[in-house]
């Protein structure tokens, strides 16, 4: 009886939707994207009707939108890797501020190259420290990065007596990071966001390293038994997340024409929201970089749309909270039905 059952087992019937198609992750990943794409379409329609005088759905407005989401998206790409392996990094918002003040103060004293390297370097250091603590101690990442968040904030506030550090008008290169337009129209932060998107997406979805991150998040023991160097991978992932925060911090400073020691407060939470709305499982093992991009876009549209529609800011918070709840609830339900 069991035997005939097995012989009749037709993979296409058993694994509906997985049938045919040459690559095996892309179609599944695409299917996961569909609800997000639908949500984006729905939001665009909603706000184009709601925002008066058709001011929402214009090319200039949408370009402005992509510019506004770029910093959050860059943070979220790094965080996706961390959350995917079952970790969390609360320090990214504070690292945005540290990277800003370090790069700008070096910029004004030692030149643009030193500024950029310094800003990125200090951010990678914070990330690597998070990773080392997470990999080598039993401390939970939430607590580790809560502590390094406070430390990073303290470091940032220690610069220039906590006052903003203005960027010299002659720092064209650094100011271009946040304000130049590539080809005369595409904001530079958006260009950088796409570059980071491509690099992280390729890393996660196209390399052995990325494959191992999925394995670590899915079943740490199995990953260990197959000889994957978990500790090393963990340090690299947190360091990459730090690098993303550093890049975001410099763009943010450039956009503001000054490095603010108090910058980036709460950025970590908006970035986490983008990651989870984008379908990454908080318990690890499931997620994607394209999903995170769509998640960041959804959060961005909500922000801008509600603003332009004239919704009171208190109500904006409530709506955003409700949207995050709904998105994650839908995702969890769908996943449970499948497994």
């Amino acid at each position, binding site marked *: *009886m*069991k*035997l005939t059952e*097995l012989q009749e*087992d037709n*993979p*296409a019937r*058993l*694994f509906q939707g*997985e*049938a045919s198609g*040459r*690559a*095996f*992750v892309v179609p*599944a990943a695409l299917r996961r994207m569909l609800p997000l794409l639908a949500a984006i379409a729905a939001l665009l329609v909603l706000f184009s009707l709601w925002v008066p005088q058709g001011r929402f759905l214009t090319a200039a407005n949408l370009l402005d939108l992509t510019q506004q989401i770029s910093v959050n998206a860059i943070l979220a790409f790094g965080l996706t890797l961390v959350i995917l392996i079952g970790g969390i990094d609360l320090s990214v918002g504070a690292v945005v501020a540290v990277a800003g003040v370090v790069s700008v103060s070096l910029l004004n004293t030692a030149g643009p190259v030193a500024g950029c390297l310094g800003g990125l370097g200090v951010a990678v250091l914070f990330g690597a420290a998070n990773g080392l603590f997470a990999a080598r101690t039993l401390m939970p990442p939430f607590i580790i990065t809560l502590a390094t968040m406070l430390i990073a904030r303290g470091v940032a506030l220690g610069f220039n007596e906590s006052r903003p550090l203005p960027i010299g008008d002659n720092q064209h290169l650094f100011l271009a990071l946040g304000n130049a337009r590539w080809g005369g129209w595409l904001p530079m932060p958006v260009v950088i966001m796409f570059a980071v998107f491509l690099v992280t997406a*390729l890393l996660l979805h*196209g*390399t*052995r390293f*990325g*494959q*191992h991150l*999925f*394995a670590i*998040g*899915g*079943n740490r*023991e*199995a*990953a260990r*038994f*197959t*000889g*994957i160097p978990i500790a090393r991978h963990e340090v690299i992932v947190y360091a990459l997340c730090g690098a993303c925060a550093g890049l975001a911090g410099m763009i943010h400073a450039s956009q503001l024409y000054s490095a603010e020691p108090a910058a980036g407060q709460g950025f970590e939470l908006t970035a986490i929201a983008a990651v989870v709305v984008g379908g990454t499982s908080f318990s690890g*093992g*499931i997620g994607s970089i394209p999903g995170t991009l769509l998640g960041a876009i959804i959060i961005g549209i909500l922000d801008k749309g509600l603003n332009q529609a004239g919704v009171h800011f208190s109500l904006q918070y409530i709506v955003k909270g409700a949207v995050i709840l709904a998105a994650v609830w839908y995702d969890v339900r769908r996943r449970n039905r*499948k*497994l």
Partner: protein
Amino acid sequence: MTRTNATHAPLLELRGISKRFGGVQALDRVDFTLQAGEIHVLLGENGAGKSTLIKIIGGILRPDAGEIRFQNAPVQIRNVAVAEQLGIRLIHQELALAPNLSIAENLFLGREPSRFGLLDRRRMVAEAERLRAELGLPEMGDVRARVGELNVARQQLVEIARALAGQLRILVLDEPTAALSEAETEALFAKLRRLRAQGVGIIYISHRLEEISRIADRITVLRDGRSIGTQCATDLDIHQLIRWMVGRELKGRYPRPPYQPGKVILSVRGLQAPGVRGVSFDVREGEVLGFAGLVGAGRTDLARALAGLAPLRGGEILLDGRPLWLRSPQDARTAGIALVPEDRKREGLVMTQTVGFNLALPWTHLWARGFPPDHARRAAIIEKALRSFAIKPGSPDLGIQTLSGGNQQKVVVAKWMEQPPRVLILDEPTRGVDVGAREEMFAIIGRLVARQMAVLLISSDLPEVMNLSHRLALYRDGCIVRQGFATDFTPEEVMMELTGAAAGAQSEAHDGSPAQERLPHV
């Protein structure tokens, strides 16, 4: 010359391997040899040391003493990587797969094909398909399917396929057929025979005696960490194997409580619940009903159902002749059914808290009804429990984790006794406790029974469950295969039933389907 030498020397030889965990001698000077091209079955009761032995072979544990020789040369299997290099692959009892990845991705985990640093998914799928065809595992299914969506049997096939990929000299399987159907088992056996023909040495751990005659070349029995003996399949003597397995003196150390049964308290009729497939039994006041079975027979599922922890799906439960439908642990408790769970650290105790906290926890409705809480009442509850169960040390403010395993277990039992339940379910009450604490636990069972409590005793220790129980229910695959007075059974008989050897023999006699014969209640 050297070649003939190599073929005659054993592929793997263990000499005098010992391993101790704390106070327990898990392995005591074990000798074991494995030839190339043989299937060597390792047999033994739970806790006999089989798992420890194979973990040493697989580089997961290191022996305290003894020598390992591989192809006649001494080796140190320091870690999993060394074992893999030697071509030793373990298939664990618990599956070690990433559920979020596809079959192909799991097969190549840690050795993914890549080109210019980029993952070559197309080749991965193609090689997985090739591997599947080559290994004759079509049942594995679409290699692009996510492993988490497969049933356990298919996951097991994936695990086997992963072990078979690449250089393989020694394959160790720990109860691989536990979750497989008859057809799947036969497919696995065919595969193992093919590997044997290719010169792979296979160590096969099983409880199921019926499988031995089908697959084994040699059988080694372990008991209490010692190798008792080895048989060749050509002169197989099942009865001797069973004697080797149960071997030790069964009488004397176990004081069976005097049997003074009262009226029937609990009647279970055709109970259906997750893992429970139509169970019926009665238990009386002052009676110990033992559930004998192998690990994985599903006795814990029954315990959970009776404690209101699992949804009931059918059948009925009568308490004092009145129907009782359990929806929650609260229902069970109100009815007077208490469970001492199998995993005391996870399910029985709040490990971060004190002895007193744990003892007082079930009785908050007595001492913390209003404000302020009745500290005197709480202290009295704790004091009574500590004293009547002789819990040592008897200080309520000590952290529970500072107590020995035996005393922790006494706390789990004692915490129910402020208002004693009528039916007490003990799930493996002596697991992980030392000899002295075992005897104390036996004495406690005797005292509870003398107070007309009904005790359901689940134990995988055969001598224990046979000698403490008044009546015995033999449990296999989610149902009771046989029940009767404990004194009417011999250990050999029980072992035959529990391992399925009896059903196997029966089905051969009837010339019927073994799969159906294995399920007496269906």
